[in-house]
């Protein structure tokens, strides 16, 4: 269903400001939350989400429907913008990137013991595995949308997610016993 809607939404967003407003209303909060999870500040998350939609505005006339969720296109832009954010930050200070992004992801979670264990287990995964889990469980993307975001096949997205979960499970066993 969503794909049919997305296709019509793309046409509206390409033809009128009101249509682009609809696209904004449909996805801004998700992109903002995506950015917030990765940078941990409201101000920076708004900055990133704003540039994502500026890029979208610039690129939308050239975007051709490819039977992929529109939100995946936005997440792909957002991934580049989050990377830019950390690049700029690294240039400014010698801040440890992974440390900062992990803290950002979980900064606002209360520290129930069990959840803290999940958090520690997640922190021990590789960045690519952690990102896989973020996309699936925190950004709540479908398999197709993850595949389109990461530019891989749906099958390989599932395989990667499955592997990341197995690894997390193992880390959790070590944590909780």
């Amino acid at each position: 269903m969503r794909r049919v809607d997305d296709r019509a939404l793309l046409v509206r967003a390409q033809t009128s400001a009101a249509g682009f407003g609809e696209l904004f209303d449909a996805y801004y909060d998700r992109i903002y939350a995506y950015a917030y999870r990765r940078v941990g500040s409201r101000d920076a998350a708004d900055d990133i989400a704003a540039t994502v939609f500026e890029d979208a505005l610039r690129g939308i006339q050239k975007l051709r429907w490819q039977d992929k969720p529109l939100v995946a296109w936005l997440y792909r832009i957002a991934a580049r913008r989050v990377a830019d954010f950390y690049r700029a930050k690294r240039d400014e200070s010698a801040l440890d990137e992974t440390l900062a992004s992990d803290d950002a992801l979980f900064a606002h979670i209360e520290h129930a013991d069990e959840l803290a264990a999940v958090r520690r287990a997640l922190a021990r995964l590789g960045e690519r595995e952690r990102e896989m889990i973020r996309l699936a469980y925190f950004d709540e993307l479908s398999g197709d949308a993850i595949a389109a975001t990461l530019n891989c096949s749906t099958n390989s997205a599932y395989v990667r997610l499955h592997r990341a979960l197995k690894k997390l499970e193992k880390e959790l066993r070590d944590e909780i016993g």
Partner: protein
Amino acid sequence: MKSVEQRLVALREREKIPASLRRNAIRARLLNAYPATRLAIFETSLGWVGVAFSNRGIRALHLPRGSRAHALRDLQRAFPYGVIAAPPANIAHELREYAQGRRREFDVTLDWSALKPFQRAVLMSAREIPFGETRSYGWLANAIGKPRASRAVGQALHNNPVPILVPCHRVVASDGGLGGYAGGLALKRKLLALEGATLNL
């Protein structure tokens, strides 16, 4: 024992994403900048010309086609979501005059927003080449401070979205040959002849 999925869901439910503070301001700014593409075709003595334009200016010009239907079809193929409109002020008039050899310069605003910086630099320099004169690809590469980039300059000109308005037909090979032209060499020759440019062929 809870599954790893259940634990992740529990973790997500505890997560608090504070609301965006600037959402409405960002929305208003973006919609204000929305460049709706409008399309227009009109006849000149060289043939039917198509233009795509936004409220910022001309985004694309399609070189003359043999018929109205042909011009319209190509324009709509390039801008499937463009809305048919009346051509912006001046442009039809100025292009008709140019086609008859009665105009040397255009007083139109171009929308460069979709172009990458390199191409924009090339086209801006090409725009300065006077009516009736020619320059080489190497000259243009020098003009933008990238003397070794002649080939990339040629590519940027080949992809010029607004030919004639940015006179890429005035850029020729350094040996006096015609070089290339996206609209075909016959048209390039025709435009240069119209301007009275001399070529050492």
